[in-house]
C-alpha cells in the first residue's frame, strides 16, 4: 500500500462519529488538565486509561492523542493569564505572555499562543508521518545488540539530563530498573524477588506504578500547600477582537521564528530525556539571542509576541518528535509517552518497527488523530476560552480528591481487585518521598520501562555471541549509541565538577 493510501485509511478510521466525539472530549479535557497548575498531560492520560479499556485500540489512541495535544497546549492559558505555567512545557510562555496581559493585550497573547500551538503540532505531525516509517524500515533489522545499546543510551540521556543532580538522576534510574526485575524472569523463567508472594510473580504493573508515582504522589504533595494557595484569575476582555486578535503582518513577521522554534521542538522531542519542559526554554533563548528588533520594540520579556510564538510552537512540536522513538522503537522519551506506551501495550499493541508492518492502520490512525485533534484544539481553545478560564477557578481542595477517586478506579480496573490499588498507593508514597528528597521520578519510570528491554537484549546478545561483549561494540549502530551515552556521562560529569570548582573559588 502506498503512503497516501495509508494516510487516507488513517483518516477513515478516525473520522467516525465516535472518533470525532472522543477527540472533542479529549481535547477539551486535555486543555483543562494543561491549564490547571499541578495537573499534567501525563495525569490526563493516566486517568482516561480505564475509560479506554473497553474501546477498540484505534478509538483508545484517538482519545489519548487528543488529550496529549490539548494538555500541552492548554498550559498557555494559565501561563498567560495567571503567570503560572500550567505545565513545565509552557514556562517560557509566561515571560512575554503576562507582560502582554498587563499591556491590555490578553486577547492577542492568547490568540498568538493558540494559533502557533496549532502550527507547531501540525508541523511536527507532518514530519513524523514521513520520518517514522523510514526509521521503522531501518529499525526492522535491529537485533539484540542494537536494542540493548539504544535502551542504555536512552537511560543515560534521561538520568543525566532530566535533573540537575546527575548522581540522583542515575540513582532514580537504577532503582526503577531494580523494581522491574521483580517477577518471573523472561528468559529463564525463575522467580526473582517475589519473596514467595504469588501477587509479585507477574511483577509490578507499569500502569499502577505510573499512576501511583505521578497522580497519587502529586496529590499527596499538593496536600502540603493546598491550604495556603489562592490564585487570582484575570478575566480577559474579548471586546472588539477580530479573528484571532493579531494582524496578518504580525503573523508573517513570526514565520521564521516559528519555523526555527518548531525545528528545535521536534529535535528535542526525538531525543529521549529532554521533552517539552526543555524545548520551550531553548526556543525562547534562541529567539531572544537572534532578535533583530530589540532596539525598536524592546527586548523579549517586555511583552512581545515573539516570545509566546517561540515557546508555544516549540512545546507543541515536541509532541510529534516524542512520538518518533515511541512508535518506531518502542522507546518512550518522557513520562507522557511512557503512559502512551502503557496504553498501547494494554490494547495488545507492541510499539516498534513491526507495528508499522502489522498494524499500519493503528499507526496512521494515530497520525490522523493528531492532525484532526489539533484543528479541534485551535477552535475550541480560542472560542471556548471563557469556559476554560472559569474552570481555572475550581479550587484544588475539590479537584484533587475527585482526581484521586479516578486513579483508584483505574488501578482497580487493571485486575478487578484491590491488589493494584494497594500497589498504586505504595508507589504514591514513594513518589512523595522522592519529591521530598529531590529525586527526579522521570528516570525511575523510564528505568522501570527500559530496564527489561536492556536486560533481555543484553542476555540474548551475550548468548548469541557466546559470551563476548565485542559484537555490541562492532555493530555500527550499537557502537554509535554506546559512544554517545558515554560521551553524555563524561560531559555532564565534567560540567558538574567545573561548576563545583567555580563555586568553591567564589
Amino acid at each position, binding site marked *: 500500500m502506498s503512503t497516501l493510501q495509508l494516510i487516507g485509511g488513517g483518516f477513515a478510521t478516525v473520522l467516525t462519529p465516535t472518533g470525532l466525539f472522543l477527540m472533542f472530549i479529549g481535547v477539551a479535557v486535555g486543555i483543562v488538565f494543561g491549564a490547571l497548575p499541578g495537573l499534567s498531560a501525563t495525569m490526563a492520560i493516566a486517568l482516561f486509561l480505564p475509560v479506554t479499556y473497553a474501546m477498540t485500540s484505534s478509538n483508545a489512541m484517538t482519545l489519548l492523542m487528543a488529550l496529549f495535544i490539548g494538555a500541552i497546549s492548554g498550559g498557555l492559558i494559565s501561563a498567560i493569564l495567571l503567570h503560572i505555567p500550567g505545565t513545565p512545557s509552557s514556562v517560557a510562555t509566561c515571560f512575554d505572555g503576562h507582560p502582554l496581559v498587563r499591556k491590555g493585550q490578553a486577547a492577542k497573547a492568547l490568540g498568538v499562543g493558540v494559533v502557533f500551538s496549532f502550527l507547531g503540532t501540525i508541523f511536527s505531525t507532518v514530519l513524523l508521518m514521513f520520518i517514522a516509517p523510514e526509521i521503522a524500515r531501518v529499525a526492522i533489522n535491529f537485533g539484540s545488540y542494537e536494542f540493548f545499546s539504544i535502551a542504555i543510551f536512552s537511560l543515560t540521556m534521561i538520568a543525566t539530563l532530566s535533573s540537575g543532580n546527575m548522581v*540522583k538522576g542515575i540513582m532514580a534510574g537504577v532503582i526503577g530498573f531494580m523494581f522491574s526485575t521483580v517477577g518471573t524472569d523472561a528468559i529463564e523463567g525463575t522467580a526473582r524477588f517475589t519473596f514467595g508472594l504469588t501477587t509479585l510473580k507477574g511483577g509490578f504493573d507499569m500502569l499502577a506504578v505510573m499512576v501511583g508515582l505521578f497522580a497519587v504522589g502529586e496529590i499527596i504533595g499538593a496536600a502540603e500547600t493546598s491550604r495556603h494557595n489562592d490564585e487570582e484569575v484575570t478575566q480577559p476582555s474579548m471586546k472588539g477582537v477580530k479573528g484571532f486578535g493579531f494582524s496578518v503582518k504580525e503573523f508573517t513577521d513570526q514565520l521564521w521564528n516559528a519555523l526555527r522554534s518548531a525545528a528545535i521542538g521536534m529535535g528535542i522531542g526525538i531525543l529521549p530525556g529532554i521533552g517539552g519542559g526543555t524545548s520551550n526554554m531553548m526556543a525562547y533563548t534562541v529567539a531572544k539571542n537572534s532578535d533583530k528588533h530589540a532596539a525598536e520594540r524592546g527586548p523579549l520579556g517586555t511583552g512581545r509576541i515573539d516570545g509566546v510564538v517561540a515557546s508555544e510552537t516549540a512545546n507543541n512540536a515536541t509532541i510529534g518528535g516524542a512520538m518518533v522513538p515511541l512508535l518506531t522503537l518502542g522507546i518512550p522519551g518522557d513520562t507522557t509517552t511512557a503512559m502512551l506506551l502503557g496504553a498501547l501495550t494494554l490494547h495488545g499493541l507492541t510499539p516498534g518497527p513491526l507495528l508499522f508492518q502489522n498494524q499500519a492502520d493503528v499507526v496512521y490512525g494515530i497520525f490522523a488523530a493528531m492532525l484532526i485533534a489539533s484543528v479541534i484544539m485551535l477552535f475550541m481553545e480560542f472560542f471556548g476560552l471563557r469556559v476554560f478560564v472559569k474552570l481555572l477557578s475550581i479550587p484544588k481542595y475539590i479537584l484533587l480528591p475527585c482526581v484521586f477517586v479516578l486513579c483508584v478506579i483505574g488501578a482497580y480496573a487493571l485486575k478487578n481487585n484491590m491488589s493494584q490499588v494497594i500497589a498504586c498507593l505504595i508507589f504514591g508514597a514513594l513518589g512523595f518521598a522522592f519529591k521530598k528528597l*529531590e529525586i527526579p521520578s522521570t528516570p525511575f519510570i523510564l528505568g522501570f520501562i527500559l530496564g527489561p528491554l536492556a536486560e533481555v537484549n543484553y542476555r540474548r546478545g551475550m548468548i548469541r555471541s557466546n559470551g563476548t561483549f565485542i559484537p555490541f561494540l562492532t555493530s555500527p549502530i550499537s557502537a554509535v549509541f554506546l559512544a554517545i551515552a558515554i560521551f553524555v556521562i563524561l560531559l555532564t560529569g565534567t560540567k558538574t565538577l567545573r561548576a563545583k570548582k567555580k563555586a568553591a573559588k567564589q
Partner: protein
Amino acid sequence: MSFKKCRDLILGIVMLLFSGFYLINAFQIKTRPKLTPSYASAQIMPVLLGVLLAILSVICIVQGIRKMKTADGTEEEGKKKDKGDIMAVVFTFAVIIGYILIMPTLGFILSTLIYLFLQMIILAPAEKRNYLLFAIVAIAFTALVFVAFRIGLQQLLPRGPIESMLGF
C-alpha cells in the same frame, strides 16, 4: 539540625541499606546453568544493579557530608522552604489508607462518599470549609462516576450495601 541539611546523607544511607538487601536476595535467585550460561543468567543484571546502587549511595553519602559542612550559612533559607503543612499530609495519608481498607466491605459508593467529604475538609483552608457544598460535590461526583463506569463502561467496582440495594 534540619531535615534539608542532612537529606542527602540520609538518602545515601537508606539506599546503601537497600542495595545490600537487594544484593542478598539477588544472590539467592535460582539460576539454571544447564539452560543458560552464567554470563546471561537471571542473576547477572540484579547483581550489577545492586553494585551500581551501592557505589552511587557512597557518592551520595560523601556529597551529603560535604554539604552538611558547607551549608551552615544557608540553613535559614532552607527552613522557610521546608515549612509545609505536615498535618495535612499525615491526614491525607490516613484517609487514603482508610478509604482503601473500607472499600471492600462498604463498597465503592459509600466509601467514596466518605472519602471525598473528609478529604475536602482536610485540604480546604479553615475559612473556606463549606460542609454543605462538600456534601453536594461528594454525592454528585460519586453518582456521576458510578453511572459512567459501572453502567456506561460496564466496569466492575467493589460492591457493598448500597450497590446491593440498587441491584448492581
